[in-house]
């Protein structure tokens, strides 16, 4: 389970939902319909559109100029599944060829029996994953029919022990930090094993309940202060006080 965080970083997540701290010129809050920049040089990216010479925001969030591209990062809202996201979900149904998993998104995820890490007899599927079990899985495709999950990677599988809780999914990049710096800090300070799903579900397992609760507090502190720059230093300070 240790590598899940790093994998979430490496496998596409950093490209799709970059950390808010990424090196960019300026960031500011925009509301839908607000003009972000004017000029023909700019290209509207995610959450932006062009009207005449202006680039307007079509989402509430932080506007960012990365080179010529202008985009808006949402601050709140529901989880939208993307390929290669690592998510935490709960098994809600077992069908003849796989498991239906609630991943806290508009569509439920489906884990086909072929995507389990080892061969499973179709008659004994509930011995591998029963209804109500919580799993860490990776999204390997998103299509109109639904979200397909896989367990064929390091760090994926059924969760046992510890506890899970939820934060706002848009805050996840901040909790992980640049190349996992923030989450590594929390892991080091508390000695807990932490898995952060891109859907905002977080699993913590530690040596003692106190350590687990401390880790949760730390994560909720970050989720609360997600807009502040230099959070890693703030977090180190927080650990000296608590």
């Amino acid at each position, binding site marked *: 389970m240790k590598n899940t965080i790093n994998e979430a970083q490496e496998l596409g997540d950093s490209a799709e939902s970059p950390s808010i701290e990424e090196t960019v010129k300026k960031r500011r809050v925009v509301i839908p319909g607000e003009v972000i920049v004017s000029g023909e040089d700019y290209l509207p990216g995610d959450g932006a559109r062009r009207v005449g010479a202006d680039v307007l925001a079509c989402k509430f969030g932080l506007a960012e100029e990365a080179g010529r591209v202008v985009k808006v990062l949402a601050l709140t*809202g*529901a989880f939208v599944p993307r390929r290669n996201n690592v998510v935490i979900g709960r098994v809600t149904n077992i069908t003849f060829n796989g498991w239906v998993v609630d991943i806290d998104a508009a569509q439920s995820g489906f884990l086909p029996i072929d995507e389990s890490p080892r061969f499973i007899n179709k008659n004994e599927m509930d011995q591998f994953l029963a209804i109500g079990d919580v799993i860490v899985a990776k999204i390997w495709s998103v299509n*109109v029919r639904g979200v397909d999950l896989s367990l064929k990677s390091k760090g994926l599988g059924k969760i046992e022990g510890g506890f899970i809780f939820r934060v706002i999914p848009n805050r996840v990049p901040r909790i992980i930090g640049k190349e996992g710096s923030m989450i590594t800090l929390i892991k080091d300070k508390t000695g807990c094993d932490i898995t952060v799903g891109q859907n905002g579900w977080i699993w913590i397992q530690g040596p003692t309940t106190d350590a687990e609760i401390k880790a949760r507090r730390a994560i909720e502190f970050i989720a609360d202060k997600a807009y502040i720059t230099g959070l890693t230093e703030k977090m180190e300070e927080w650990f000296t006080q608590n």
Partner: protein
Amino acid sequence: MAEFKRPSGRGMTEIRKMSAKVGVIPNADGSAMFSFGDTIAIAAVYGPRLLHPQHMQDPSTAILRVNYDLLSFSVYERKKPGPSRRSQEISKVTEWALLPVLDLKEFPNTVIDVQVYILQADAGTRTAGINAASLALAHAGIPMKNLVTSISVGKQDKNIVVDLDKDEEDYEEGEGATDFPIAKVANSDEYTLLQLDGKIEPSEVKKALTIADEACEKVYEVQKRALKEVVEQ
């Protein structure tokens, strides 16, 4: 005529004190509160999420489902909880007022639920509800072209006034009172709600709309500030 004074003592185009706050409901994906004086509306947005019953799903887009209701303690005489003819109508017009700004093509087969509840009613609840719902949708990160602003204009006898409260709506002298709630896409000429309860000369409608436009700009400023405040904390 010149001595006409509103029962509330406000100027003709003076809006009641407005306030707005975003993020009032932690469990919702987006939420907001908006108030005109003693009228307070809260709105919560959930989704995009899976739509049941399945036959209502639209594979080309998400659908918007608005539920407006007065809470039982919001009015002097206890309101029986649950949907009524009035609340169903207002739910529907709120939905139509918001839909033109939303871009829901990204989320096929899903639903976006908007719950609008009135905590305190002193007339103008649908306009406060639309303003709150528009903020809540923005807060939920739903792609939208612009915010929707809403205000009611009206007439007391022959005078055009803005943002009637309950006492003013019950005004009976002369021609009586007219309530003319409107909603529009902010900073544009696109109207998304026009209702009329009472009498107004066709020639005066234009004047009423000009006054409403000015009022909407003030509403928009309040909405804008509320959204920006969430981040600055």
